[in-house]
C-alpha cells in the first residue's frame, strides 16, 4: 500500500482527501500543521506528499524547496494544490511534480497521484 502524506490547513479538505484516498487503498497520514511535516516525513516515510500552497504563515512551495535539498526527502514526489489557480504558474523553481487547482475533481486527483507514484 502506497503511503501518502497530506498537508492542508483546512480541516474539511483534509478529511475529505483522507477519506477519498483511503477508499482508494492508500495509506494516508493527514496533518493540518506544517510544523509537523519534518517529523512525519521522518516517521511515516511517505511515497508521495500532497501539499497545500497557502498554509497560514508558511508557503508550500518553500517547504517543497527545502524537501528537495534534504537527502532523505529529495526523491519524494510532491503534488501542490491551491485555491489560487495562478499559483500553478510559479511552481517551477520549487521542483514540485504537479499542481492541482482547487476545487478539483477527485478522479483527477487520484489519477495525478497514481501517475507520480509509478
Amino acid at each position, binding site marked *: 500500500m502506497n503511503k501518502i502524506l497530506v498537508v492542508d490547513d*483546512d480541516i*474539511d*479538505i483534509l478529511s*475529505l*482527501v483522507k*477519506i*477519498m484516498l483511503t*477508499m482508494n487503498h492508500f495509506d494516508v497520514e493527514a496533518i493540518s500543521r506544517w510544523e509537523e511535516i519534518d517529523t512525519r516525513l521522518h516517521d511515516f516515510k511517505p511515497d508521495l506528499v500532497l501539499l497545500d500552497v497557502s498554509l497560514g504563515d508558511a508557503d508550500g512551495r518553500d517547504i517543497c524547496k527545502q524537501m528537495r535539498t534534504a537527502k532523505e526527502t529529495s526523491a519524494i514526489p510532491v503534488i501542490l494544490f491551491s*485555491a*489560487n*489557480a*495562478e499559483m500553478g*504558474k510559479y511552481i517551477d523553481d520549487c521542483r514540485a511534480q504537479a499542481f492541482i487547482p*482547487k*476545487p*478539483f*475533481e*477527485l*478522479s483527477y486527483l487520484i489519477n495525478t497521484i497514481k501517475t507520480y507514484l509509478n
Partner: protein
Amino acid sequence: MFNLRDISIKNKLILMQVFTSLLVLSIVFGVFIFTDINSYKQRKVESMISLAQVIGTNSISTLQFDDPDAAMEMLQDLHNVSPEIIRATIFNNKGEIFAQYSKPGLDSFRIKDVLKQRKFLFSGDELFVSSAITNNNEVIGKVYLDVELSELQQTKAYKLELAAVLLIIALLFSFLVALGVQTYISRRLLKLVSTMKNVSETGDYAEPLGDDGKDEIAILIQVFNKLMQQIKENQQKKDEFIGIASHELKTPLTTIKGYIEMLNMMEQEPTKKQFVEKAMLNVNKLERLIRDLLDVSKIQSGQLRLEMKEFNMNELLTETVNAVQMVSAPRIIREDKLKNEIIYGDRQRIEQVLLNLLSNAVKYSPGENKVIIDSEKTDKDLLIKIRDFGIGVTKDEQMHIFERFYRSKDTSVHFSGFGLGLYICRDIITRHCGKIWVEKADPGSIFIFSLPLKHSFKTQQTEA
C-alpha cells in the same frame, strides 16, 4: 432650432468676444456719427441764421422805400453766395410777400407754420430758417430761407460707410484675437473632457492630469484627479476583496464538490443519483461563476498574465468539444478543416474561450438545435467560427455583448450568469493580438474569433 448650448466652448468663447466687440463698437460709432451730424447741423443753422440777418439788414432800406425790385435783385444774388439756398422770401410787416426767390425748376413758396414761433426747423432734407427784420427796435418784416441739405446726406452716407468698414475690420481682428485667446481656456477644458471620455470608455484611470493654474479650471482638474484617485483606490480595494473572497469561497466549495463526487460514485439508487448529479452540476456552475468573477477582477487590475506556449489548435478543439459534449446533448458538429495549426498562446485561456463560446451556443439554442464549428485560415490568422441556431443577436446587442455585466435583454430567454463570460473572452483574445466578434446568421448567430498563427504572432505583437 439654434441652441447656444449646442455650440462648443471654443466657439462660444469666440462668439462672445466678437459679439462684445460688435456691441461696443456699434455704440461708439453710433455716438460718434450722431454728435458729428448734430454739430454739422448746428453750424449750418448758425451760418444760415447769420445769412438771414445779413439779408434782413440789407433789405431794411428796400422795405422803407417800398422797392421790391431791389430786394428781388439781392435775393437773386444768393444763388452765387450760397447755392444750397433753394428758396428765399421777404415779408413786410403786414405779412405780405415783399420779394421772393426760388431755384429754377422748383415751386416758389413753402413756409412751415411752426417757423412763426421758431427760428429754424429741420424737415426731411431741408432746413428752414427765419429772421426778423428790425429797424430801431421795430419789426418791419421777416426773412425766410429754405436750405437744401444735400451735403448732409452725403456726409451721413460717408460716415456710415466708414463706420461699417471699420466695424468689419475691427470684428475681424477681434475674431483673430479671440481665436488665439480662447485656446488658453478651452485647451485645458478640452483636455479634461477628452480624458474623461477616455476614462468612461476604457475604464482605465490613467495618470493624473497636470495643471499648474489657480483658476476654476485648475480646481476642476484637481477635483477630477482626486475623484479618479478615489475610484482607483476603491477599485483596488474591490479587486483585493474579490481575490480574497473567491479564494475563501473556493475552499468550502472544494469540500462540497469532493463529497458530492464521492456520493455520486457510491450511490446506485436512480432517484438519489439524479439528485446528486443535479447538485454536482450546480457546484460546477458555482465554480465557474467564482472563476469568472476572479478573472474579471484580474483583468481590471491588470493582473491577468498569459502563459504563452505553442499548442495544437485542433487537439485543443477536440478536447474542448468532447468536454462540452459530456454535459450537453451531443449536437456539436465539426465542419472545420483544422489540421495541425500551431498557435502560440495560453492554452488554458484559449480553452476557456472555446468552452465559454460553445456552452453559450448550446445554452442559447435550446431544443434539438445543433451547433456548428467552422474554421478559416489566412496567411496570418486562424479563424474559429461557432454557429448556433438560437434566437440570434440584434444589431444593437452586437455592439454591447462583449461588455462587462452585459446580459441579453430578451426576457423570454433567461439564463443565469453574471454576463462576464464574453467580456473575459474578448480580453483573452485581445491579449493574444486576435479579434472576437459576432455576426448575425439566419437563424441564430456566429461567434468568430481570430488568433495569429505561430509564425505571425511575434511580428503582430511588435506591431501592437
